[in-house]
Every structure is written in structure tokens, then in C-alpha cells.
């Protein structure tokens, strides 16, 4: 059970640090192209617990990281179907059960005038489902991330491109993985420790 939860959290980019409190290795790359190539090399070597960080969306990164198609659509569909059901229930229950009101001889419940309400609720719930699904799949909100211990990492919102391989990966080895990152063109490789003293 714990393994399953760890696995799910890893898909969201939330990784466990190992027994030495090593969270992983952070490598900086000079430009988006190098980052895409590095991500592809990392994936091809067999690493699975890794993530990339850049100031803006990088075209082709999903493919390079082997992420596949986004699953937000299913969350959106689920939200939409929920909204549809809620809409029908609301219109039927308020109109025909709880407070039947005769308006110019129209039926208490009919699909014709109810569809706008059902439609709007479907759209509302789809949108909420999409946003909630996006947050969940990204593991957001995430106020604490061990990567924030790195001084250099603060530049990720400005002009720096990072690749992070987590210590929880099966292939992770502090020496070998560090050498691997330098081999694929990292400017700088830094081990990240999950010290747990972020409040300082």
C-alpha cells in the first residue's frame, strides 16, 4: 500500500528522499534544447524518477520525458458527467418534487427548459474537474520542495534549465548518476539533501 502511494506521488513529481536524506541530484543545462536532449538521454538510460524545470514550457519536452498524453481530459470528462447528473437532478427535484409551480401550463419537469441549466452545470463541473485534475496530476499545491535548498535553483523562474533525478529511482547512485549527468552535458551537478530545516 505504501509502495502504491509512493508510486502515485512519484508520478506527480513528489519523490521520497533516501535513508541518507539525499533527495536527488540537480543538474543545470545551458539552454532548452540541451534540456530536451538531457531528458531524452535520462529516459533512455532507464531512469524513471526524474523531472525537468524551466522558466517556460519547452516544446517537445513531454515526448522527450516519455510522459505520454495528458490525463486531464479524463478528470474533465468525469467532472462533466457529474455536472450533467447534478443538473438533471436539480431541475427535476426542484421543479417536480420540492416546489412544483404551474408556469403557463408548462410541465413541472421537462427537458426543454432544463437543458440550459444542465448544460451550464456540465460546463462548470468540467472546468472545475479539469482544474482539480491538473492540480492533482501535478502534485500541487506543494509549498515544500527540497529543491528549494539549492541556491542556483532560484534562477529556474528566470533563465536557468534544470533536470533533477530523484534518489528514489532504482538506478540512482550518487557517484554514477552524477557522472552520467556530467556526461550528457550538465554545466553543474549538485546533490540535494532533504534536511527538513526549511523554516529557518
Amino acid at each position, binding site marked *: 500500500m505504501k509502495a502504491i502511494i509512493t508510486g502515485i506521488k512519484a508520478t506527480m513529481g513528489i519523490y521520497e528522499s533516501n535513508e541518507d536524506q539525499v533527495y536527488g541530484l540537480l543538474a543545470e543545462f545551458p539552454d532548452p534544447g540541451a534540456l530536451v536532449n538531457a531528458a531524452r538521454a535520462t529516459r533512455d538510460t532507464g531512469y524513471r524518477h526524474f523531472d525537468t524545470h524551466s522558466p517556460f*514550457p519547452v*516544446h517537445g519536452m513531454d515526448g522527450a520525458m516519455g510522459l505520454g*498524453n495528458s490525463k486531464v*481530459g479524463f478528470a474533465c470528462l468525469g467532472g462533466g458527467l457529474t455536472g450533467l447528473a447534478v443538473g438533471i437532478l436539480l431541475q427535476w427535484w426542484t421543479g417536480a418534487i420540492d416546489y412544483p409551480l404551474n408556469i*403557463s401550463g*408548462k410541465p413541472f419537469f421537462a427537458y*426543454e*427548459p432544463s*437543458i*440550459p441549466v444542465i448544460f451550464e452545470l456540465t460546463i462548470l463541473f468540467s472546468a472545475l474537474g479539469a482544474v482539480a485534475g491538473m492540480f492533482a496530476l501535478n502534485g500541487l499545491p506543494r509549498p515544500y520542495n527540497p529543491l528549494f535548498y539549492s541556491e542556483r535553483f532560484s534562477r529556474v523562474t528566470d533563465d536557468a534549465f534544470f533536470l533533477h533525478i530523484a534518489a528514489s529511482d532504482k538506478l540512482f547512485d550518487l557517484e554514477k548518476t552524477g557522472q552520467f549527468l556530467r556526461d550528457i552535458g550538465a554545466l553543474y551537478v549538485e546533490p540535494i539533501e532533504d534536511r527538513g530545516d526549511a523554516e529557518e
Partner: protein
Amino acid sequence: MSNSVKTNSLSLWILDPLRPTAQYAREAFRPDGKVMAWFIPAGIGVALLVVSGVGWATNAKQFYFSYLVGWAFCLSLALGSLFFVLIHHLTKAKWSIVVRRIPEALIWSFPLLAILTIPILFGMHDLFHWTHHEIYDPASPQYDPILAGKQGYLNTTFFIIRLVVYFTAWTFIAHRLYTVSLRQDVDDDVSAGARMRKVSAVGLVLTAVTTAFASYDILMSLDPHWFSTIFGVYFFAASFLTAHALIALIVITIQRNRGLRGVITKEHFHDLGKMMFGFTVFWAYIAFSQYMLIWYGNLPEETLWYRHRLEHGWEYHSAALLVAHFIIPFWVLLPRAAKRSIPVMSFMAVWFLIMNWFDFHWIAMPVLHGDHAGFHWLDFTCWLGLFGVFLAFVMYRLGRHSLVPQNDPHLGKSLNFTNI
């Protein structure tokens, strides 16, 4: 160089206003020039129209209604394509440049469609109840005070004047867009984009207004008591949807014959699929908006139109329209994989073309057969005959020029387009 593309002789002008430019096309964009591409639809189309002529001799009224539905179907394809070209110029759309030549070939159908109006003009007395003189005569037992009040708009002279205005406007806009784009293939004129945008700005307004009124005249006035201001939007939604279906289908046909492979990719089909999905929803939205307001308003002169379509078997047509024009396509085209699958896209393209005809049949035929729903064999021969001839002209034009606007400055972006 700019004068190297000569205008065609006047007799061939309705086929194509320009002489062939295919010899200037780059290897990858060159049409294969096979005669069969237009010969087969032309042969089938003419044969079916000859068969329909026999139907005209035996049952003229049925022929006129079937012909009108088939003709409106072809018109909706040309108008939908015109909207496609106009909107994509105005929004400076880049993804669609590689497919733009196909709607450009489609919009030069207006001269042909104008000629094909002639049988409708002969059948006006059978088609349009408002052409009958006795309904305007107060002494006559058929006197109809409501239609008498509409006589200022619904009369034969003004109807023909309006048709002439519509076709002149459409032909003019189409001529500008078609010739400027094709000349750019040869003379590499960088100002072509700006000129086509200018035409589109005026053209979109003009096309929107004329399309709405054309739909009132051609389809809505079949039941002259009825009126719906949203009907023009309904016609637009059907046209725009079906134009995307036909564009996708023509691209698939060309690719099956080894043309444009690697030029138009799954990414472009994905976008065409998104537009088809979006506009089947839009069509349903508009169709429902029309129905709901009439249901809620409950005014006798408006509800009668739906009443005719909800009895004597037409209720099955109405239900089929809801299920097959909206619910089924919605679920089929919803997944990303479906829009990127050529077999699914070609199936849905044919599906939408059939549904568009079914939709117009549903609008027009209860006027003729209010007491029993169904199809007459002339419905099929007229529709497919006209569509065959229409398609033959389009395929003939496509075979004469580069299949892609090869000198568009943004062509590279369109070739390398990917969906995120």
C-alpha cells in the same frame, strides 16, 4: 512574372478562372493530374442527373423538392469553405495553410451553383407557396392575410434579384481570394497575404449577411408562415461543419493517391477533427436554441413548423437528427486518438456529409409530404447527381494548380505544425 498566369477563356471560366499553374508547383505539392479524379464523379453525377430528369417528367413537384435539397447541400459546402478561407485569413491562421488550397478550390463553385439554380427558378411555383397569386387576392377563398403582409419581401422578382445579389457577392469574393492566392504560387508576391486579408475583412461581413438571407429564402420560405431569426446561424453551423468534413475527405482521397504525404499530417487532421467536433456541438447548440425558444414561447405560428416535424413519421427523422448529428459524433470525436486516426476521420467526414443532407431533407420535405415521412428515390439521385458534378469541378481545379499555397511566407510553420 506577375502576368504569367493568364485568365482562362470565358467558356471555361466557370471551371477555373485561371490557366493551369501546376508546372510551377514544387515536386511535393504537384497534383498527379489523373483524369479519373474528376472524371468518375462527373460521370456518376451526370448519369444520376439524367435519371433524375426522368423523375422530373413523371413527378415534377417531387423532383423540384429533391433538387432543391441537393442544391442547398452543395451550396452549403461552398459557403462553409468560403467562411473557412475568410476566417483563416482574418485570424492569420498558420496551421491551416497546407490545407487551404482545398477550400480555395471549393469556393470557385459559385458560378456553377448559380447555373444550377435554373431548375429551381422553373420550379418556384411548386416549391414556394408564396408564389401563388390567389393568396394575395382578398376576393379569393385562398386569400392569406399573413402572407399578403409579407408580399413586399416574398415575391418572385425580389427573390430573383436577391439570388443574383448573393451569387454576385460570393463570386466576387471567391474570385479575389482564389486568384490572388493562385497567382502568389507563381509570382511570389509578398503583398498577397495583406490583400487577401483586406478582402476577407469586407468579405466576412458580406458573406455572413448574404448567407443568412439566402438560408431564409431558399429553405425557410418553403414554409412561408414560419420564421426564425436564428435560422441563418443554423445554416452557417451546418455549412461550416460540413465544409471541414469535405476538406478532410478530399485530403484523404489525395493522400490515398500518394499526393501530399508528409505535407498534411496527423497534426492537421487533429485540428480539422477538433473543428468538426466543435461545430457539431455548435450546430446542436443552435438547433436547440431555435427549438427551445419556440417551445417556451408556444406561439401557434412558430410551433406549427415543429409540429409538422413531430408527427406522421417525421418524429423519427427528428430523433435521428439529434442522435446522429450530435450525440454519436460527440462521443466518437471526443477522444484525441479518434481525431488523429485517418479511418475514423474519413468515416466521420462521410457521416457528416450524409447528416447535412439529412438535415436539409428534414427541413424541406415535411412541406411536401406533411402526412408521411420518408425518402423518394429522386432525393438520392438529385443529391448525389449534383454532388458528383460539384465534386468533379472541384477535383478538376485541384488538378490544375499546386496543391498547397507554396509561396505563403508562413508555409514552414504550417508544415512543422504540432499540437501541444
